[in-house]
């Protein structure tokens, strides 16, 4: 993916995000447009990962940029503009699916935590052979990945997307989602496990045991094991 989206026609490619934010705050619409052009596709990928519908994802991105512009004065500059933006995108995306869902997916890990149970399988040792890039060329596999993502609860999917797309640390995700680091680890672990399980026929090796019970204890206590 072109991280910057389409190229800017304003000749501001080299301008720092902070300078663009400052200019946008002063009413420079072109500066804000440059920020839009830099990040709209990244924002879209993030939104699509959560809402899983192209038109809904576009709506989320549009709303996110409008909201970002509205609250530019509240952007303190402690993080990058995109870090701030993706939080807006993520919040809007999660709000969107909560408003439009008909059946709430059960979060297996949290349910089992309540039941005091563990899980019976862990991370799979191998997935899709050794060439994921080639696998992505296969339309059927893309469809299966979409379906597997769709089977996750919104919280699991959000954590997985934030981690894999943005590379956020556990601590950053905990802050973004307003929960403990242990809960983030639990959600991420189970999201990955469920994804692997749904793509199990593409796996080269048999599943291995894990120490998921310990993981669940850690999530329950809100701390690292």
């Amino acid at each position, binding site marked *: 993916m072109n991280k910057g989206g389409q190229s800017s026609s304003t000749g501001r490619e080299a301008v720092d995000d902070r300078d663009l934010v400052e200019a946008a705050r002063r009413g420079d619409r072109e500066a804000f447009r440059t920020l839009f052009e830099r990040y709209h*596709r990244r924002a879209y990928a993030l939104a699509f990962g959560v809402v899983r519908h192209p038109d809904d994802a576009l709506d989320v991105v549009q709303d996110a940029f409008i909201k970002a512009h509205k609250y530019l004065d509240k952007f303190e500059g402690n993080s990058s503009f995109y870090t701030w933006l993706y939080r807006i995108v993520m919040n809007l995306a999660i709000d969107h699916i909560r408003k439009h869902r008909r059946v709430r997916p059960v979060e297996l890990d949290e349910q089992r935590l309540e039941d005091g149970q563990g899980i019976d399988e862990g991370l799979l040792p191998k997935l899709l052979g050794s060439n994921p890039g080639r696998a992505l060329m296969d339309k059927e596999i893309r469809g299966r990945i979409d379906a597997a993502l769709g089977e996750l609860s919104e919280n699991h999917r959000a954590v997985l997307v934030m981690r894999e797309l943005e590379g956020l640390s556990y601590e950053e995700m905990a802050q973004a989602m307003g929960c403990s680091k242990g809960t983030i680890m639990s959600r991420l672990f189970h999201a*990955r496990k469920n994804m692997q399980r749904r793509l199990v026929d593409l796996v080269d090796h048999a599943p291995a045991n894990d120490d*998921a019970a310990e993981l669940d204890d850690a999530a329950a206590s809100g701390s690292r094991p």
Partner: protein
Amino acid sequence: MTGDLELMEHADGEAEVELTAERRAKVEAVHELGELVRGRLERAADDVPDARFGAMWKEIDKQLDLAATPAAKPVGLFRRITRAIEHYRSHIITGVVSAGAVAALALVLHGGAAKRDAHDPIDVQRVSHRPAEIEDLDTPGGTGTVFNLDDEDGSTTVIWVTPEDTVEGI
């Protein structure tokens, strides 16, 4: 403890563990899954035509323009009352003029009767000090009010007819 959780932390760069061949395979699987998810989402973003984002920017630009337009100043209570009066002003004037005309007519009629009473008492035969009792007042399209005025000249009856639209207007 070196379970799958620690392997996941290792894969995510949150912790360091020693890797055997089996553990290394699991870590690689985590990376592969991440690559699949990332690749799938980035490809989905690449599949969106530039025109869609172009249209999106136009809509954002439009929305920002709308947001920048000062909102209409809230209308105060006094202004709303003034507007209501302005709206019904013609009805009020009509009502006041009509009522005034009726009142003036009643006073003129009463004045003529009093004069006639003074200069030609033969023509008047007072049978009672009370005015004639009105049994029925038909005022189509309006409201009728009857006043009985008693003074040294005797009793006077004033019929005040108010057009209906004056009442509705207020």
